[in-house]
């Protein structure tokens, strides 16, 4: 089962809606539009040969310098029958950070999506219980966004530029 076979099959099914196909360090990576991300996941899940039936992880990324694509949700899927992993990225703009939920397919997606919401404020439409999971419930910001710096801004003795951060 080569990555090329997977991507050929996927492009035959989804056409050229799948973008940015590449293989960093051997793992097939592509971007799917957020309208049909669930379709892609479902297709890979049900495919008789691929069987991507294990959700390894869901996590968010904040690309602060990509206008219109500020947020990304990354799905890592693993096919145990073929021992192949794929990474699927879905982008969402900061004005509308909403992505459909994958909890219908994988029970594990529940807390993974809650964690992503907790840290990035990405809303998973249709999630049964989208609340914060690790942080306090009355927190009013999303700490993993790039606009929130790590260190106390009132301190002037610690200048990040000295340390190349």
């Amino acid at each position, binding site marked *: 089962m080569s990555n090329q076979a997977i991507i050929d099959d996927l492009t035959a099914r989804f056409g050229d809606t799948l973008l940015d196909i590449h293989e*960093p*360090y051997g*793992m097939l*990576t592509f971007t799917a539009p957020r309208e049909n991300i*669930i379709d892609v996941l479902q297709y890979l899940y049900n495919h008789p040969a691929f069987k991507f039936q*294990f*959700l*390894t*992880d869901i*996590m968010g*990324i*904040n690309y*602060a*310098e990509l*206008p219109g694509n*500020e947020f990304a949700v990354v799905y*890592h899927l693993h096919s*145990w029958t073929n*021992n192949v*992993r794929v990474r699927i990225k879905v982008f969402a703009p*900061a*004005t509308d*950070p*909403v992505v*459909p*939920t994958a*909890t*219908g*397919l*994988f*029970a*594990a997606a*529940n*807390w*993974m999506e809650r*964690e992503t919401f907790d*840290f990035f*404020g*990405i*809303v998973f*439409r*249709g*999630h*049964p219980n989208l609340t*914060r*999971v*690790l*942080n*306090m419930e009355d927190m009013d*910001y999303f*700490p*993993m*966004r790039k*606009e929130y710096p*790590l*260190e106390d801004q009132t301190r002037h003795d610690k200048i*990040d530029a000295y*340390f*190349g*951060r």
Partner: protein
Amino acid sequence: MPDTKDIQPDVQLAPVQPKVQVEVGQQLPQYDNELTTLNLGPTHPATHGVFQNILQMDGERIISGVPTIGYIHRAFEKIAEHRPFYQITPLTDRLNYCSSPINNMGWHMTVEKLLGIEVPKRAQYIRVIAMELARIADHLICNGILGVDTGAFTGFLYLFQEREKIYDIYEEICGSRLTTNMGRIGGMERDFNERAEAKLRAFLKDFPAVMKEFEGLFNRNRIFMDRTVDVGPIAADRAISYGFTGPNLRAAGVDYDIRVMNPYSSYEDFEFEIPVGHNGDTYDRFMVRNDEIWQSYRIIEQALAKMPKGPFFADAPEYYLPPKKEVYRSMEALIYHFKIIMGEIDAPVGEVYHPVEGGNGELGFYLISDGGRTPFRLHFRRPCFIYYQAFPEMVVGTTLSDAIVIMSSLNVIAGELDA
């Protein structure tokens, strides 16, 4: 770019119908009795860590459970975005603090994969020994405490002596015991010395007798089996859907092990088996961990016997600290020493996912580098966090005392749960 600070996503969106209906828990019958709400935790001695379960009880039966976690959340992913790579190792110590070396090595291997560093065989073998010792220590704690939770303190005391010996070996390898910060990017910080080898051989000599004694106390013990057999079973398909990995998944009968699926650090050189259980109940989890201890023991024996000669670190001057002697003598070593310590090395652009078989399952590191000196984004796939969400489903319908045993056998480590 619009200011994302002003955007508060609307959480109250109308739910859409998912394509496949997922059953969350099971349908609860109507209860006539008055229900009790029980706060199990956050600082309950039987939770072995700081996390809370709000249980609805009908007498002693649990009819629903809501886990509340995050009490020791320390924002490691955020901190990691502001640290050079070598300073992230101490953060990984504190994920699953019962098996820190596995976390350390997993992180080193992730960075090495990003940088394309090939680690010499000797370092890989030392790493295997450290990781397998950590796995033994992790499983010893889990199984020992499972005994305590069923009322048998003796086994725990026997095993803790052996764990102490493992920590003594860590001390010889890296100088510290619990949060080890072991190894370096590119190899090990020091060679495997004679004292470490002597201690390891002494451990290998004494351990089987203690372990056999422990197994003799528990494996066919009537009281222990009554408390654990058919308690908290989870079927293989539910376990896979819930993202179970590691011993908890193998107890359900699925032989998924990263050491075999995606071998790293020369695991393909060793001969070992993957123990599996039948129905994923507490007893199976206990037995799978016991058997894995023996397999880890086998791997350590082989690694020690086959330990290759040669260097214990790779030729990666930009990441591996030069020996101190060199720093005082040579200009180049001094420059690299300074650059590494100050974190002034730019990493290549790339994104890499590297899984290792942690004490509790697939411990993954997803590292995105944008060419800077720190990770652009680092995400830990923490097995505890992912499988603990199945806990309510597993305890509904059981009694409180069973819930304690189930939680104990899942080996939920608060540090890994909360990151």
